[in-house]
């Protein structure tokens, strides 16, 4: 091979595109398509077999049992789980996990705990698009739980409520709609989008009863009735209710969100600019009316 040919080949290579996944193909002849034989024995059955629906290509309908009463019609319809794909889900977070987060400083108990601070630990993930509407604080670890906290959950049992209150804390159950939850699961990402904080919607018809019930510590319940229910639960479970009014962090225990609020201290309608560290607050009467109603 002369030098000229080598140079030509190299210059050609230089102008050619790199070999990549988008420009390679199989070797010629590596893939053989099957052909239908036509000769003396090649043209016998062509893979369709001998006799029956296989040969005649007249298959039975799905579920048909050639004369039997079909299995799919043999029993009555019992829709136990009707609408399960539409129901609200509350993935569990145990009291033990919460205590572990407190012990390892993953959540700050000097401030109220809510879904935002639980998601900010990075140890709990929520998927609102999969019909998850917040977390359910469950009973595991109720015997060791000892922290004084102001916590807002989406679902809690009676034992969990009594455990939190026995330790000298406060618990509220609160509802968030899907748009609010999308803002809460990753607050930094939400603020960076530069859209106004939405207003929280009221619970749907079938959740109103739970969130207005003082025995469930609903956020829409009458506060006086809640304090009465606190006493009732203390008598039922047989413990002396700690006096939170005399606690040094009483002000923190009183901190609650407005039913329209998503983040503590931030009003719906505000736009947060993380880069310049400023907050834009709307002043139009129309907007104020919308976000306050």
């Amino acid at each position: 091979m002369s030098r000229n040919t080598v140079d030509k080949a190299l210059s050609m290579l230089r102008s050619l595109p790199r070999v990549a996944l988008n420009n390679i193909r199989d070797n010629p002849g590596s893939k053989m398509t099957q052909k239908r034989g036509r000769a003396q024995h090649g043209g016998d059955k062509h893979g369709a077999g001998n006799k029956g629906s296989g040969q005649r290509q007249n298959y039975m309908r799905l579920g048909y049992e050639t004369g039997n009463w079909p299995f799919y019609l043999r029993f009555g319809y019992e829709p136990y789980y009707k609408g399960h794909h539409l129901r609200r889900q509350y993935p569990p977070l145990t009291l033990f996990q919460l205590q572990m987060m407190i012990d390892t400083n993953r959540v700050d108990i000097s401030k109220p705990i809510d879904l935002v601070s639980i998601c900010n630990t990075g140890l709990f993930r929520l998927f609102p698009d999969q019909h998850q509407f917040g977390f359910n604080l469950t009973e595991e670890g109720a015997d060791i739980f000892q922290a004084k906290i102001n916590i807002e959950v989406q679902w809690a049992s009676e034992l969990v409520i009594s455990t939190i209150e026995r330790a000298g804390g406060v618990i509220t159950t609160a509802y968030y709609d899907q748009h609010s939850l999308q803002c809460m699961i990753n607050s930094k990402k939400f603020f960076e989008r530069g859209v106004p904080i939405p207003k929280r919607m009221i619970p749907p018809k079938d959740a109103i009863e739970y969130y207005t019930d003082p025995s469930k510590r609903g956020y829409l319940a009458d506060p006086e009735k809640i304090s009465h229910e606190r006493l009732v639960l203390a008598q039922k479970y047989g413990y002396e209710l700690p006096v939170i009014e005399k606690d040094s962090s009483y002000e923190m225990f009183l901190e609650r969100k407005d039913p329209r609020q998503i983040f503590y201290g931030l009003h719906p309608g505000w736009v947060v600019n993380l880069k310049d560290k400023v907050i834009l607050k709307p002043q139009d009467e129309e907007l104020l009316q919308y976000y306050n109603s």
Partner: protein
Amino acid sequence: MFLKRLPALFLNKCNILCPKYQHISYLNSPFVVDIENKKVNYEVTNSIEDWKYIERALAPIVVPIPTPKDKYPSEWKPQGQNLNSKPYFIPRTKNHMLPVYLHISQRGIRRITKVRNIQGDIWLLERHLRDFIQPLDIRPIRSQINEFSGYIRFYGDFVNAIKHWLTKHKF
């Protein structure tokens, strides 16, 4: 001739296949009716009081360091001091936990306990752990030591037992 034409073809194809990337959002789609440039009255504030609430809503960038406390109801304990004198050492993970894990395989039949990130005399640690675990099982303990990667694997679920032993020895 054909080869010379190829690069140009390739380039053209590339332009068609990779148009300028645009973030897909309903905010990017044009309005059906032109609503002009509507101005909204906004008050720009940089009050420190409000910004405290923003900082509260934002996640910490790194995992917080646990402060020493009087009691730990969850039985988690921080790593002890002065572990230099011991022949082996296991550093905590970035989440301040013990690197002891349970691997379940074969449809839940095989359970293997793995102790990771072991530094120092791994053979001695294996002997100590084996002596502690052996009374918990009637069968002889089977184990595997990987000195290069610094892990020990025990056949069976001994996660809580090993964690208990390690916390007792202040790891």
